[in-house]
């Protein structure tokens, strides 16, 4: 089977106008072990050197890194370096063999990773239950439609109806305005899809990761042009978790490198920091996904 190996560097830098005396940070940067990919190597480097740190699994089985920097500092840099290998087989849309109306009855209590299924069915702050979501979903509710096919149609609808617009939204933009304005970025589209599917009892989860971008032929790839990405996974008993990328209307293939999954973005925010000190902070994120080897 064909394989492809990637080297990924994900760098998050906080700059402060004033001085920070203490920072606590939580990172969701280490890839899960149970994805369809082989992690060759992963390390996280923090500058300045943290005074205390710990690693644990969160309730969804993601690895989290906690660290704190106590001395005063004017910038903070977190670099995650990952080498991962993926199979290049093309994904095919599976069948759940279940109409969406009856899925709920067939669900088990736990998913294959032993997480309680109910976590992926309940509304969250980013993916609430609301009338405007049901309203949005209504055209996709064709009686008797296969669960996975319905998810696939919904993905295509989001791709067609929403405009990808960087800067139109941020992490605090409520889903209501994303749906009303039909604009957003990958996180927003994932949240819309998740909220819609959960409202009819289809388990779905938010996936954080990276997507390899390929420049047009003849153009050399620039540094730092990649970005962290977000997509969706949907569950049915016959298929297990199936990935959908509403931003690109695509089933995630070998160019998608998964890091963590959660109920929504806030469960798997790559880096969250609480800073105590003076001044304002600004943030710079750069991601490089580099293809280093292809093997047959």
């Amino acid at each position, binding site marked *: 089977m064909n394989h492809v190996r990637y080297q990924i560097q994900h760098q998050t830098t906080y700059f402060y106008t004033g001085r920070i005396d203490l920072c606590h940070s939580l990172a969701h940067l280490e890839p899960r072990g149970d994805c369809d990919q082989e992690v060759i190597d992963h390390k996280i480097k923090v500058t300045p050197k943290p005074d205390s740190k710990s690693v644990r699994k969160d309730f969804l089985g993601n690895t989290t890194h906690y660290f704190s920097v106590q*001395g005063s500092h004017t910038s903070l840099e977190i670099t995650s370096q990952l080498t991962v290998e993926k199979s290049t087989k093309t994904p095919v849309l599976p069948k759940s063999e279940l109409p969406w109306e009856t899925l709920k009855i067939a669900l088990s209590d736990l998913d294959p990773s032993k997480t309680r299924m*109910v976590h992926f069915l309940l509304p969250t702050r980013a993916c609430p239950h609301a009338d405007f979501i049901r309203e949005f979903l209504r055209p996709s509710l064709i009686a008797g439609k296969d669960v996975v096919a319905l998810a696939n149609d919904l993905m295509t609808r989001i791709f067609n109806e929403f405009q990808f617009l960087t800067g139109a939204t941020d992490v605090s933009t409520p889903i209501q305005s994303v749906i009303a304005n039909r604009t957003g970025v990958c996180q927003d589209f994932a949240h819309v899809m998740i909220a819609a599917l959960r409202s009819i009892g289809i388990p779905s989860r938010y996936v954080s990761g990276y997507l390899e971008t390929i420049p047009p032929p003849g153009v050399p790839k620039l540094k730092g042009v990649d970005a962290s990405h977000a997509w969706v996974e949907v569950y049915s008993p016959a298929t297990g978790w199936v990935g959908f990328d509403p931003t690109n209307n695509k089933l995630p293939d070998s160019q998608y490198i998964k890091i963590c999954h959660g109920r929504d973005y806030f469960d798997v925010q790559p880096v969250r920091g609480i800073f105590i000190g003076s001044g304002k902070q600004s943030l710079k994120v750069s991601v490089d996904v580099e293809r280093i080897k292809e093997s047959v």
Partner: protein
Amino acid sequence: MDVVSEESSLDSKPGSAYQPLAGIRDEAKSPKGAIRTGWTEVFEEIDEFGEAGLQKWRSDVARISRKRGLAYHPVAVEEIKTKGTWSLDPIPWNFPPETWKKIEEGVGQRNRLFEAILKDIYGPQHLISEKLVPAEIIFGHRGFLPDLYDVTPGDAIAGLGISAFDIAVVNSGRLFALNDRFDSPFGLGVALENRTVVNAVLPELFRNCHVRRLGYFFRDWFDHLAASAPGNREAPRIVILDSRPVTQDTEISFLANYCRITRVSDADLTVRNGKVHLKALTGLEPVDLIWKFAAGRDLDPLESNHPIDGGVPGIFSAIREKNVAVVSHPGCEVLQSPGLYPFLPKICERLLSEPLLIPPVATWWCGNPSAKNYVLENLNHMVIKSVGHHSDFQTLYGRNLSFDELSWLTARIEARPQQYIGQEELNLSTVPVATDQGLRPRGAVMRTFSFVGKDGKPNVMPGGLARVSKEDGGIVSTRKAGESKDVWVRSHSPEKPISIARELTQSCLTTPQITPSKMAENLYWTGRYAERTDFITRFAARLLDGRTFGFSHDPEIESRHEALLLYSICEMNQCLSWLDNAPNPDAKIHLLLNEPKCPVSIAFNLKQFRGAAQSVWEKWSRASILAIESIWNSWDKGTGDLFHLNDYPSQLDETQLQLSAFFGLNLDTMTRDDAWALLEAGRRIERTVNIVGILSFLLKQEVEPVLEHLLDESILFISDSLGTYQSKFMNEPLTGPIMQLLLGDAGYPRSVKFQLNRLGEVLAKLPDPKEYDHPSTFLKPIISKLDRIVLKTKHDGEMLPITRTVSAKDLQSLYKEIFHLSDHITQSYFSHAVRITEP
């Protein structure tokens, strides 16, 4: 569970004036009019003193409560209008020992049950796997914190701590549970406070009734806390964490004060090296135990998936590492869900292998289709509550809803049934309450408090907080304000009095007698704002005197004098833009009075003063609290309807008088400790800044002699030194002698020299900051600079222009140095910033 108190002999003589309502159970009297056990003494007392006695007790309670300035006391005047307050009824709710035993058993079991549920939810989750409770009721609740799955109560991880259970009695005499509160429940402080107030109003009755003491419960609680500390720490350090807004903190500050445990806010705590520390005057002090009165889900912003202002970042990590114990468990709010009620009897059987003693109110979870249908069919006599999902739904009473509202509610429940429960509305029993119309029967609910010890045995406080409705019979609103009552549990023989504070010192807990930085900062600013208000008040009085009596025959001089004074005070308080924008001279003067947003107004500064003073409530004597409140109340009431400037002078006099009463009381009542030192330091620094500021402004002015003399006189007036000057110099005001008096006269309490000497004395009481030089080292150069300025101006009565300019410059630089000193105090004692280490 039944609480049918046997009736005492049918001698219905005592309390014959009290008539329970027909058809509603009363706790004090049987339907036949017989007094129930435990109430005879109370009725005898009422009969002895009659209607007049009853009214006297009521007014005594109100007076004592108000005087204490505590829980019932409205904290902010504007809050009264919107929120209302709790008042206290002098008549206690009585329980004979036998009846209480049943309540104790039932409440104790309930507490054990919820401890077991907590341990299961943040642990193996058998209840969910075995489908004893629907998963979404737990996981959908906003208070369930999934990431605390590895913070299972046990060893060094605390469980529920003191829990509150609302208990009511219905017509049949059965007990019901109405609410369960775990996440910093309201009322423990109020219950303690009610006890002290009622005890003060009815001391003999209290003694004769053999009322059980609350102190023993607290003694056991402190032992429990000590045993809950992580590791085998000897003398673990404990603090009370209170992150509620100031308007609610009176109950907790009362509790903290009563127990002598330092109360801190979340900004006082910081996590370093995985351990919790208290930012204190003495530096960072480690903390082992936190008795929490703050919402668990807002505790650690690092691990929250909703935005949080405040909190203690990193604290969950510290809990997991067992470096600190937080009581109660931060994830306990989920247990408050009424969605658990339908499932409680079975959960109790499963976890405790016992039948549930106190049943919950009949409750239907709408996530179950047949239960939903039942609720919808009976909607007009049901109580509808949210199960605590992410929703702002307020409890609704079906009988209060119109047809349209009922259909709106039906649609809402149909759309998301799993988010709602329906509850039967109980007909609560009544207790006698003292009212304007004598003793009246009112519906009552009792909040009980308990905790489960390390040995698994529950400990129920013999007493509680009873809440009664505002009208005869009727329901008790638990959210809004109402009336409360003390709960008297009787014993057969008298108990020895016990002091809670003494018990704490005898327990092995350490209550660091240190001043948290935030408190220190508030004390410092209390001193500064009080002094600043005093200064501005004199300023305003001077300006208004000019308007009323006039200082000069020349209106031009008059108005320039006014404008200069206004300019100086606004410049000193960075309010020049306010001055520019005020449309006319009256409006400019008004800036100093009742312009609540303008930093130079008395209204603004009084508000700041009161805010700072309030957040260190426990540091004041009762008399000082009264003084703080009356300063504010008299200003707020006295100026509420004033429009004309000439209405103000008498109010200004009163405010000045009250401020000096506040300073005088502190002088009389405060221990000369850190707190005192900071309050004094704030006051002395502010006074120095004001005198130096106004003098340097005066020296900068190049004006004709007539205006200069007028300004000189004004400065003496503003610094309250006119009389002293006149008796000392027997002369008209001259700048030179004024400088000598106000700057250099070490024996004169209004002089800068005096302030700086006092400042030196109080700063010496402050500990050495760990990272910085002691602030008193900054003071010496300031004092010698002052001495030089005084020397330079000694023999120059009129002061030549050249001396004036030089002195103005000198004073300016003195002014700056005092500001540096203030900054230094802030950095080294309040913010604990680590020194910058440049690479």
